[in-house]
């Protein structure tokens, strides 16, 4: 069993269709911690010590958020700025996160076609997500490929339910040692684990 921390950031959850379904399917097992940043820090005043101890208590961290403007919502960026302190997460003596695994779980309005050199977004998700990858690397963490639900603008209920089920399965694999690191190194998306 691995302990999984889902750091969830959505500024307008009540209007979301996909993300509400996704978080509904997060496993209830004791090794999963769902932590809603906007619900906990509506004033952006992040409790750094609390966040640090949450990180220490878990082996796997998920940055779960809608993919806004090719990045995360501002509170998650605030979280990165404030919690990942020099000397704690990185830099001299900053090895508290060493060896933990981390990945982004994102939802995008555009589909896979939009995220390629020919699409209107020009670049792929793995391209866009590089800053997160490098953040993880600087903090001595293993960055896994992202889990992505894409094309949410045009999804019907059945498709959304299906996406949520996939999220649940991926989280379960992640939480139960369902894969080795080398298994996922060459994947673009964690979703692809399910195809095996």
């Amino acid at each position, binding site marked *: 069993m691995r302990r999984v921390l889902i750091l969830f950031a959505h*500024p*307008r*959850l*009540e209007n979301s269709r996909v993300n509400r379904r996704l978080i509904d399917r997060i496993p209830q097992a004791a090794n999963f911690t769902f932590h809603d940043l906007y*619900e906990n820090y*509506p004033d952006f005043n992040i409790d750094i010590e609390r966040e640090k101890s949450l990180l220490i208590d878990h082996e796997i961290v998920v940055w779960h958020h809608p993919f806004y403007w090719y990045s995360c919502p501002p509170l998650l960026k605030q979280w990165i700025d404030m919690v990942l302190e020099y000397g704690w997460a990185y830099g001299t003596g900053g090895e508290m996160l060493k060896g933990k695994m981390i990945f982004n779980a994102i939802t995008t*309005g555009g589909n896979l076609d939009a995220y390629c050199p020919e699409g209107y977004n020009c670049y792929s998700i793995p391209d866009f997500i590089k800053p997160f990858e490098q953040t993880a690397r600087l903090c001595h963490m293993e960055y896994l490929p992202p889990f992505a639900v894409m094309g949410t*603008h*045009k999804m019907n209920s059945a498709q959304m339910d299906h996406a949520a089920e996939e999220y649940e399965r991926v989280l379960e694999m992640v939480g139960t040692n369902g894969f080795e690191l080398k298994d996922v190194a060459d994947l673009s998306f964690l979703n692809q684990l399910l195809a095996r």
Partner: protein
Amino acid sequence: MAAADFLVQSTVYLAAAVICVPIAKRIGLGSVLGYLIAGMLIGPFVFGFLGEEGEDLMHFAEFGVVIMLFIIGLELEPEKLWRLRKKILGVGMSQVLITAAVIFGVTLALGLVWQTALTVALALSLSSTAIVLQTLSEKNLMDTEGGRNSFSVLLFQDIAVIPILAILPLLAFRSVSSEEGSNTVLEGLPLGLQTVAVLGAVALIVLAGRYLIVPGLRVIARARIRELFTAAALLIVVSIALLMQSVGLSPALGTFLGGVILANSEYRHELESDLDPIKGLLLGLFFIAVGATIDFALIAENLVLVTILTASLMAVKFLILFSIGRFFNLLIGQNFLFAFALAQAGEFAFVIFSFAAQLGIASDQVLGLGISVVALSMTVTPLLFIVNERMIQPRLCDGIPEEEQEPDEVEERNKVIIAGFGHFGSTVGRFLRANGVEATFIDNDPDRVNLLRKLGFKVYFGDATRADFLLAAGAQDAEIFISAIDDPERNYGIVESLQKFFPHIQIMMRANNRYDAYEFVDMGVKNIYRESLDTSIRLGVDVLRKLGGTAYTSTRAGQQFLKRDEEAMWELAGHRHDEKAYISEARARIELQEELLEKDMEDKAREQDHAWDSEPLVRGFGAGE
């Protein structure tokens, strides 16, 4: 005194006080001068409501001085008094001796016989405890170096008056029956026994304070009857005064001692606040009586003489005080305060003069002139305080090079002044202090002031609407003035004073509610904080969350509402004057409320929260693909 007579007299005194004092305060003259003027007006020489009973009244009202010294004693813990001993002896004794010697010389030169000259000199060397202490505390100057020195001198004079009264009979040309002098039970006892009795009385006060009064007060306090406590407080003062009088000591001195003994007890503030109004009334009465004794007829007859005598008396006293202040290393500003404060002759002079007249030492003419000069000098004193404060001190502050500054005395000036240390002000103050900003506090609740001082805050007790007081609190150097007072009327007064005298200061104003805020908008206040606003919205936000709203959206809704409501406040404040004159205030408020609600509805329709709304995206991109 017949009952009807009593009612008439009370009406006259109270009316005179109630009319004159607020006017005097309003125009910055202070309450003492207000009472003095009231006394002059109702005295025999202007309206004549008050006849010769003025002097009896004065003796009765002198009890106010006794209570005042008790209260001052309450504020002075024994250790503090012990620290003052050098000042009391050094500054006090030199003042009395030198002043008396100089006046003695001058009066001798003017041709008085030496006995009369000595009496006059001793009488005039003393100052007015009542006027000086009352004025000093009203202006919050008791804790300054000048104030402390003045107090020390006055305390010494209180002691000195006892031997002075004792030697007067020795100067008498004709003997006088003893009961006309001091009638103490000790008369006739050998000197040694008298001394023992005096020391015994003092010891009795100390012991009773520790072992009788405090436990007694505890019992009375438990009865929870407020007036009983007041009665007990009065009983303490009166009985100490009686004891002192019976052994021939000054009652004021005795009650002062009693106060000091009780200064460490837990009932100190209660005693203080219970006696304070009584003290105030009696002192007021005393000042009225002083005003009433000014013999305008005599002054008019000898206008030049009285003026010259008064002026030269005060000049001489001033110069001597000033030199003593210099000798004892007072800073120049404090020295001016000290010298101006004590330059008058005091109520003891009345006593000494009348006693001397009985003894035949002073002729009726000397008596009349002396009393006029004394009363006049007392009357001028509050004016001198004002001259010192308005004309001399401001000049000193700027031009003085730093001379022998004692580090304790350096009044560090804070950039922020907070008026009112209730729940609102204390929260602001704590917040600022937690962030390294020290503020100067102003409050008119003595208990709170005391508590704050203990906590190391810089607090001034007093009325923040008064410009002179604001000056004393450092408004000249402050950048921000926070008014956390909840009484709108006082806040209006503060704003007026600040805008008039300290236009550089930024006013941050607590407003009780929207209507209160409108007044401040009208007055030109730029920073207005309605105490009911933020908290209500915060509560509302939490309600939204409890009803299932997400935290962040609820919070944003609150922020948005706050912003809109602030905008509406400024808009509607100007707006309300365009409307026809409202029939009633209530009607006006209802209309404003309606206007506000309408505005809320409009805003709601106009600014739906579209943030992170994906609908238009879905439509837009959907069409494009």
